[in-house]
């Protein structure tokens, strides 16, 4: 993980936003990973929202299916937030390091 933060940082330090990707070799950069995670979480949220709207509009009657989809979206969101917290924590540890 530190590797990936490092690559993200060196990319940012280079002043090129596109340079963020692939600096650390084959491993996806932090920015890429985050983007993927956000996309996936967003997909789940949209799915839950869609089902809720469908339920309210009377298009289907899958009450528990809707609640479970919303719950899955909630867990995905929290998982992403946890991962983000860990990454920021690691970044701050390094940022505050005395050299």
């Amino acid at each position: 993980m530190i590797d990936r933060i490092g690559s993200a940082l060196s990319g940012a330090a280079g002043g090129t936003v596109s340079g963020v990707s692939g600096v650390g070799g084959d491993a996806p950069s932090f920015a890429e990973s985050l983007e993927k995670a956000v996309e996936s979480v967003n997909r789940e949220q949209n799915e839950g929202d869609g089902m809720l709207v469908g339920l309210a509009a009377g298009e289907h009657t899958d009450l528990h299916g809707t609640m479970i989809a919303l719950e899955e979206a909630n867990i995905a969101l929290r998982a992403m937030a946890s991962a983000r917290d860990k990454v920021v924590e690691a970044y701050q540890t390094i940022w505050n390091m005395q050299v």
Partner: protein
Amino acid sequence: MAGISEVFSIASSGLGAGRTRLQSIATNMANARTTRTEAGGPYQRQVPVFETEDLAEGDDGTRGARVVVSEVMEDPRPPLRVHDPGHPDADADGYVLYPDINVLQEMVDLMTTSRSYEANANVVEATRDMALQALQIGR
């Protein structure tokens, strides 16, 4: 490892099965004294039959299974022959064919269905709680 979405999917199928059972029970209760049907004759008690639907094998070689409604069959028991000469559907001897539905049995089925729905909902809740517990590690 069995993913949480698989467990959610299994529990969701259990909740769906509960709803199907509920519908059959409601139909049986409502039609306990129904003497006319489209097919002719008295109403036949509905019995939902369930079967498993295997999920794909997980990383650890385990395999879960959802429950799906196989079909809703008719209770094969013959209708009750009740002497009720005043009924418009009585035969020449004054007997009416009523469905062989025991409302007490339907009530017991309703209670077990309600409890099994509750159990499946608890599985969903426990799965969610376990996932959130895992996210709390290291906090």
